[in-house]
């Protein structure tokens, strides 16, 4: 099955899902929060990748994203950037750390 996003194979967000699963949330509330996590992760990674591309390469990249051409995306990124996979993983991990901290803070709320 095709992955949802071009970075889905290197970004793992199940720990967030599990943490939210520990909370006594309604199904819709959990879905709302996971939607926000997904959107925020997506925009974080898109910002990171676009920041490593030239003006013309940004357009090619966006076109591939819009058409879900994951193989072409990675060919482009491997040609035009260095260690982008590691950088994506680091940005995703940093965001997740903050999300876990937010969840821990929320659990202290009375």
């Amino acid at each position, binding site marked *: 099955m095709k992955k949802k*996003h071009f970075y889905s194979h290197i970004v793992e967000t199940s720990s967030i899902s599990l943490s939210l699963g520990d909370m006594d949330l*309604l199904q819709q509330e959990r879905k709302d929060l996971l939607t*926000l996590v997904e959107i925020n992760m997506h*925009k974080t990674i*898109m*910002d990171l990748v*676009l920041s490593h591309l030239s003006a013309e390469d940004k357009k090619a990249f966006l076109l591939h*994203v*819009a058409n879900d051409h994951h193989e072409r995306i990675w060919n482009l990124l491997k040609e035009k950037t260095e260690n982008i996979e590691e950088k994506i993983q680091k940005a995703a991990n940093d965001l997740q750390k903050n999300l876990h901290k937010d969840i821990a803070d929320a*659990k202290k709320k009375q």
Partner: protein
Amino acid sequence: MGSQRAQYTHLRDRWTQQHATLHGRLWEKHKEALEWMQKKSQHAAVGSLGAFMLFAMPGKQEFTMPKMLTANVSADIGKDIDKKAFVISDLSKIVPETVEPLSDSEEKQIANVFARYYGVNATAELEGKRLNRSYGYIGAEQHLKRFEGDTMEGHFDNPDDATKYYSSGMAPGRGAWGYFGTDEQAIQREKYYIAVQSFLSPGWQGNSKELYGFFKYRKMLVVNPQNGKAMVVVIGDAGPAAWTGKHLGGSPEVMKYLERVDGRQKGPVLYFFLDDPDDKIPLGPLPLADANV
């Protein structure tokens, strides 16, 4: 149950604000490429979830993709959350970090945001009259007696409201403007009322009679700037006292909808006069105006 709800709203509000920041930064840094993609998308068959999630811009009309192409992906993401993120983001750029009186310029900018997102004309000053402030901490009020002999047992018009709001109790006396009455309009007014510091409003000392009449059941828009929830209410009582540190009060129904609480966790709201001369805007929750977002 209350604490679980607080946990959810804490995370939702925090991550919605974070989204607004990320979105703004993304578009600020890569505007040219993203706008190019927007234009391209209007003519080409592009409809991936990844692209769809990119094209929503605070303060501007949301990018729309061909319906056929987006039907399968639009359900995957929280469109309502995006819309709320827009208004939260726009307000956060105007509202001061500390809860203090707004400047004329800030009030005008906020009125523009209200017009854009809620489709209503709301102003801090109407007919040359204004309250002591338009942004302040809201505290919890009790139910008010609508008529002589009104009791908690007979106050609610449906069992659901009785379950939700009975515990707030009823104030022993009447509101500053007397009894609301017994008809449907009175029920709505008592349900969706706020108490304002009318006694601190400019000109009150020399012209209290006229201002008293102006403020009576005056329709207002109250907005929680941290979650974008808006409600149309009336001024139904005077208060709270200045020494409380609070600037206005909300009925139990108002507080619950706006997700505001009293005490140490009290939070601010924006409260502007609603210019609705033909009385067309109903009291109660005001949704975001789809056409303008």
